[in-house]
Every structure is written in structure tokens, then in C-alpha cells.
């Protein structure tokens, strides 16, 4: 190969790739508005993005999977822990993570900043990410959970308990989160109906409840309550 041929490999390789990138970048700008619901980018959402950057949240938490790996991903935090969960963690991290081996700093955000941050995370939760992240997929059982139900014969309630992210806050037999209470003995305290009522809308049963109202069908609630009733 001559040096001239090598030069043309260099030029053509670079240009082809560059043209692809620039053309697709143009197309990205045409489509990103719909994919991210840019019409919902209100001034409050933008103020929330400022707050997100001001407090350097992104160097502990990933968002869209980018950033620090020290805290959970925030893309779907609004689905996962809801507005009250976000508020609780930001306002009172010393309480929310009192039993956690990893802490979150208390940054003393103003009430307005917290509102904005919530609006921002609400907006991010509806970006079309092709169903990423897998741990926060909203409307389907993971393939792993389906296998558990079909193969090992565990109850649908147990599979749902795992799949709907209950472990994020609650623990069973020492496995799981510490934000909510441990559910090892829940069946000896509450019966199935009481559990179901609570899951359906926690704040209706207890106005002080930290737990959120999750988007669950009545069959799912029934299955979960049946599973939890047996934790004695």
C-alpha cells in the first residue's frame, strides 16, 4: 500500500463517519421533541434542571444512565418513588437513609427548588428511552419474574413483590431496602383485606404514610396482599 492510498483511507473513513453523524444529528433534532415530550418543558422543569445541576446531583446519581454510580438512577425516580418519595429523600435524607449503609447529603434546598426538582424528574420520567432502565420498567413483569412464577412455582404475589420494586423500600428476611418497614411479620399484624386496603392507597388508611399509591390493578393488589398475609 502506498502512502497516498493510506491517506485516502484516512480521509474517506473520517468523512463517511462524520457525514453519518451530522446527518443523524439533524434528524435527531427533528425527532427529539416528540421523543422527550418537549412541549412539557415548562419554566418550572427548566428551573428544576438548574437545581439538579446546582447541587451536583448527577455526580452521585445517574440520569438516563449517565453520571455517578453511587445512587440509583433518577430517570424514572418519579415512577419508582413518586413525588413524596423524592421530597422525603431531598428534604430529610438523614431520616430517609438513617438505616442505610450509604447516605445522601442534606443540601437544604428551598421549598421552591424542591418543587422544581420534582417537576424536572416528572418530565424525565416520560422520556422515551426504549424502555430503559430495565429495573424501572412500568407495565410488565420482567422475564426473570415470569420464569420464577412458571418454573419454581412461587406465587404471583411474590413475583410482583419483587418486580414492582417493593424491595426498594421494604425488606423480607433481611433482603431489601431500609426506608420502609420490614415486612417479615406483616401477616400476624394485618389480614389480607387490611393489607390490600393499605396498598391500594396508603394515605387513605394513614394520612402520615410515606408509602405511595402505586399504579396496580385490583388483581395485582389481591395477589400481593395474599402473599404478604402469609409472612408471619
Amino acid at each position, binding site marked *: 500500500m502506498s502512502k497516498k492510498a493510506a491517506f485516502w483511507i484516512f480521509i474517506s473513513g*473520517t468523512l463517511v463517519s462524520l457525514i453519518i453523524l451530522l446527518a443523524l444529528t439533524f434528524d435527531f433534532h427533528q425527532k427529539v421533541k416528540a421523543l422527550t415530550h418537549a412541549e412539557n418543558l415548562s419554566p418550572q422543569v427548566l428551573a428544576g434542571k438548574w437545581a439538579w445541576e446546582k447541587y451536583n446531583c448527577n455526580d452521585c446519581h445517574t440520569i438516563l444512565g449517565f453520571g455517578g454510580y453511587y445512587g440509583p438512577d433518577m430517570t424514572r425516580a418519579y415512577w419508582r418513588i413518586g413525588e413524596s418519595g423524592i421530597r422525603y429523600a431531598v428534604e430529610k435524607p438523614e431520616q430517609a437513609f438513617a438505616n442505610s449503609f450509604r447516605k445522601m447529603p*442534606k443540601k437544604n434546598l428551598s421549598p421552591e427548588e424542591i418543587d422544581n426538582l420534582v417537576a424536572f424528574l416528572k418530565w424525565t420520567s416520560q422520556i422515551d428511552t*426504549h424502555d430503559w432502565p430495565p429495573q424501572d420498567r412500568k407495565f410488565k413483569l420482567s422475564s426473570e419474574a415470569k420464569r420464577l412464577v412458571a418454573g419454581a412455582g412461587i406465587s404471583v404475589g411474590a413475583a410482583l413483590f419483587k418486580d414492582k420494586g417493593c424491595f426498594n423500600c421494604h425488606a423480607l428476611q433481611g433482603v431489601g431496602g431500609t426506608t420502609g418497614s420490614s415486612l417479615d411479620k406483616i401477616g400476624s399484624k394485618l389480614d389480607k383485606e387490611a393489607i390490600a386496603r393499605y396498598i391500594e392507597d396508603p394515605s387513605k388508611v394513614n394520612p402520615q404514610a410515606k408509602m405511595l399509591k402505586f399504579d396496580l390493578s385490583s388483581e395485582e393488589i389481591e395477589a400481593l396482599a395474599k402473599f404478604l398475609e402469609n409472612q408471619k
Partner: protein
Amino acid sequence: MEYKSQKVAYPYFVIALFLFLLQVLFGLWLAINYFFTLPQGLVNVFPFATARAIHTNLLVLWMLLGFMGGTYFLLPDETKREIYSPGLAYFQLVLLVVTGVVALVGFVFGWTQGRPLLEIPRPLDFAVVIGALIFLFNVGMTMLKGKNWTVIQGTLLAGLIVLALLYLFGIPFYHNLSVDWYYWWWVIHLWVEGAWEMITAAIIAWILLKITGVPREVVEKWLYVELGLFLFTGIAGIGHHYYWLGAPKYWLYVGGIFSGLEPVPIILMLIDTFKHVKHRQLEIKNPLVWTYAVGCAVFHLLGAGVFGFVHTLPMINYYTHGSQVTAAHGHMAFFGAYALLNLTVFYYAIPKLKGIEFFKESLGRVGFWIMVIAMTGMGLAFGVAGVLQTYLERVMGLGYMTAQGEMRFWFKIVFSFGLIFLSGVIITIYDLLTLKPSVKREG
């Protein structure tokens, strides 16, 4: 050392080494954060986020100072004239270092742009841009006045210009988070797989030329081919960052195909390095320099090529994206492709700057192997933690902190290897700063 002005490179090297040491110390602190429960009071004033910002910005700063020092060192030799203005070179160093120190101290007090790796606040970005412009001016003028154009010079200058231009994409406040990350990667990805590759390929080509005596014609031909492939796979390969950020689905194909080919030029670079070393026409004076050069090529393939490839395909990346698997890749790739390259340059240049023809290299060799082995161990430990996280959190659906609990052990391993790595870094820095001549060649 033929040209007096080459000595401006030395302070660049010394400061870069010092920042490297600091970077590793902050890295160890970050590892502690992962397995040890720190009190809330400490977390409030010095959170993980701040330490991470410092760790990563130190990385960028010492890499860039190393590249700049390396450029100033090779420039007179390539252009056959002194550097246009050594005074500007010193001024630019002071400007960048002061900016860097202000930025790092600012992070501790919460002054930040708040975007990973681009935390330097916007007012300071202007100082960085001015520093970069002075550098480009100085390098460009030296080349223009030298009127002795070579492919190595052209590649180097093009890489530096692209590097500076891409930085501009990191400065604005983007309204849409997806657009924000889209262009964030123009800085980060197109740096490490575009501009930085050009700069380091030019530098390594020059060093191979110098230590092996292989004809320039051959070295430069390979440089073209490698860079052509690097940029062909690398530029559109940016798509492997666009899978899940709110971009159209075709990126899964573009990113998967182009980045799947990314190991090819790295393999080629490794073959080429071995070839040059085999067909050398000069006696190798200081074998440690080419241990470093070959080590750089091998580790580049391992860290960037292999560890990059394993999670670049969309069906795998869906589960590994944003997990410790990325941290494993990041550490191995930066060390292999860039840290070892800078150290290769330092081991080539510093003896020349000190007028030492043959240097005692036993200590340097110890430092090299400690760093390489420790980084391999660290990368693997990060990798195991990443696989655990991927499986427990993303496949099994256990909560984030449950998975993190199972990963704690592996962060102790990361920390242990980090300590070993630190000892290698200290040995290497000590050795580089106190190089002693040896009467006979050591083998």
C-alpha cells in the same frame, strides 16, 4: 536534547505527575465511600459527588497537561526549530493550573456547573478556552515558521484543534436533558475516541520513529490507516451512548455496528507497534521506554477494546448501561490508552531533558508492573461488581441498595488494588523525578 525550548515541557510533566497522584488519592477515597458507612455530617459537607468531580477533573487536567508537555517536547524536533514562544508556553501552563486549582477548590464549596466531567463553572470555561487558544497559537506558529510539514505534525495539530472546538459544545445550558447528553458526548466521546486518539497516535508514532529508527514513510503510512479506522468506527460509534437517552431507535444499529468495529484499529495499532519494534534499525537505548510503549498498546486493547466491546452491543448494554461495568471499562481504558501513553512520553523525554543517555531503570520497571497488575485487578473487581449489579438490580429486579449491599465486598477489593496501584504510582513518580544515569545498558 537538541533544542533549548524543549525544556518548557518539564514543568508540564512534573505538574501532570503530581495531579496524577492526587487523582489516585481521591479515587481511594471514593472507593471507601462504597463500602464504609460515613457519618451524615461528613456526607453533608464533603459528599461523594464532590470527590468524584475532583477525581475526574484531575484526570482530564493531568492528561491534557501531559499531552501539551509532550507536544512541546516533540515540536522542535519535528519542525526543526525552537518553539515560537517559550514565554507563552509557561504563561499558558500557569493560567491552566491556576484555573484548575480554583475549579477544584470551588467544587468543595459547591461552585459547579453540575454536569459530570464538565463541572468546571462557566466563567472558568473562558479561562480554559483562552489557555487552549494560546497553546494552539504557539503550536501553530511553530509549525508555520518551521515550514517543515510532516504527517505527524498535521495529525497533532488537527487533533488539538478538534479537541478545543469540541470543548465548546460542553459550555451552554441545554434546556432538554436528552439534547444536553447528546452534546455532552460530543465532548467526552469525540475527545477520547477522536481528538485524543489523533493526538496520542501522533505522539506514539513520533516516539516509535525515534526509538526504533523505522523509516518515517512507514510510520506515517500506518498512522493514516489507523487513524482512518479509528475515526471511521469512532465518530459514528458515538451511537453506543445514544441507545437510551431519548434518541430515535436507529441508533441501536448505528451504535452497535460502528462501535462493534472499534477494536479493529486498536488491534492494528498493537500489531503495528510490535512490527516497528521488531524491524527496528536502532539499538534500543532504554528498554523501559518501549516496555511502556508496548504496554500502552496492549492495555489500550484490553481496556478500551475488550472491556469496551463486551458492553457496547445494545442487547447487553440495555442491562449494563450506567452500572459499575462502565466504571471497569472507564478505569482500564483511560489507564491503558492515555495514562500509559503519557508515562511513555515522560520516560522518553525526561532523560533527554536531564541529559541522561542511559538511565537506571530497575525502579521504573517495578513501578510499571505494579501499576499494570493493580489496574488489571481493579478493573476486574469493578467488573465483578458491575456484573453483580446488572444481575441483581436489573435482571432479578431487587432494589438498588440491595444489589449495592452484595457489591460491597468487591469494593474492598477495588480499594485494595487501589492501594497497590498508589504504591506503583509513587514509585514511578519518584523514579521519573530522580532518574539516574547508568554506565552500562541494563536489560
